[in-house]
């Protein structure tokens, strides 16, 4: 005779029920929290990625114009106009003395709304006569803008001015492709004299096969002009020129 009573049937199901309960508890205490946690971390990653992409986009859109110009005495005025549709926070103005290799850092906090401008006077009385300076402006988003009027020159009279003379140079390349050059002008105290200590350098790139540069110099006299190809420490052209030059100096670059 088979026993089919309540106690007989339920005995076989207890362990199965326990097994099922354990499986469900594993699902709720391990699998689902893990799934939710991974989802949360993925969301955090995606959110950060979007935030930083937006920051980079704003950084690309940012655009300002900087003009540094001399005003009375030892003062340089820095005109900054916000040309973009975003607010721009100016954090620093760099005044770099090219001769004495010193930096005058002004911690500014200028807030420019779209289309607005500001003029900041900088007292540069600590600079020596004959100094050439570059003015650069840094923004909070991490961009640096050079002044359109770089390089400024402090004359022997103690007044600031944009370098009054220039050596125009045209480099004629032979091959296609973009090439970069550096042109350096060093002031001499005579045609065969030694350096006065003043020098200035500009970097230029070819457009087509031609590269053109204008190197500002402080006055009449003789200058040792040297031209370097990018990545080379020895110049491929050098010449003593007398300023004023009445025509651009043409330099052929026949090398590779």
């Amino acid at each position, binding site marked *: 005779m088979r026993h089919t009573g309540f106690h*007989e049937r339920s*005995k076989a199901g*207890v*362990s199965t029920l*326990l*097994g099922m*309960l*354990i499986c469900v*508890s*594993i699902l709720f*205490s*391990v*699998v689902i*929290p*893990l799934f939710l*946690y*991974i989802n949360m*971390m*993925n969301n*955090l*990653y995606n959110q*950060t*990625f979007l*935030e*930083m992409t937006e*920051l980079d986009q704003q*950084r690309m859109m940012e655009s300002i114009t900087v003009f540094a110009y001399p005003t009375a005495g030892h003062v340089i005025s820095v005109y900054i106009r916000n040309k973009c549709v975003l607010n721009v926070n100016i*954090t*620093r103005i*760099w005044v*770099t003395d*090219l001769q004495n*290799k*010193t*930096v005058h850092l002004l911690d500014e906090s200028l807030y420019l709304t779209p289309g607005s401008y500001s003029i900041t006077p900088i007292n540069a009385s600590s600079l020596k006569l004959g100094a050439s300076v570059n003015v*650069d402006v*840094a923004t*909070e*988003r*991490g961009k*640096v803008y050079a002044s359109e009027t770089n390089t400024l020159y402090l004359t022997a009279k103690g007044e600031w001015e944009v370098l009054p003379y220039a050596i125009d140079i045209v480099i004629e390349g032979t091959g296609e492709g973009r090439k*970069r050059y*550096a042109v*350096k002008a060093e002031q001499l105290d005579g045609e065969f004299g030694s350096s006065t200590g003043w*020098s200035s*350098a500009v*970097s230029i790139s070819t457009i087509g096969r031609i590269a053109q540069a204008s190197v500002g110099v402080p006055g009449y006299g003789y200058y040792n002009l*040297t031209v*370097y190809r*990018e*990545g080379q*420490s020895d*110049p491929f052209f050098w010449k003593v020129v007398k300023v004023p030059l009445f025509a651009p100096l043409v330099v052929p670059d026949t090398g590779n």
Partner: protein
Amino acid sequence: MKRRGMWRDRRAISPVISSILLCATVLAVGASVWSFSYNAGTMLRQNYCREVGQRVDGLRERFIIENIIFNSTGNNTMRIWVYNCGTINIKLTAIHVFRSGSVVHSETFEESVTIPIKGISEISFTTPVNSGEDLVIQAVSERGNKAFEAYRVP
């Protein structure tokens, strides 16, 4: 002759005891499986959290070399300013100076240079470079991000 030992006579174990034993076995095995799953899940979660956290921190890092100046008339001192424009503090571990694609000088810091958010830090070191050379300065952070700036030695 039939042996009637305890292990031979199946009728000696009552159905109640067998059920209890079965349940106990299920509970023991289940508890072990649950414990293993829970620990494995916790470990997976912690590892995933750490890895994603590191990636998120790396994403939030932004820094630039804001200015460079080299004094050849002094003792060949190069001064560079690094600005942190990201949304997390950064730690600089090294500065490399490249010329024509190869490293001419490496400056590594025993104690990382920490730059707070929107902060700027000046780093100076001596390096043997000559006037007229084209250099690329590279700043490396602890998280492996890099910032580059080209510089021509005046």
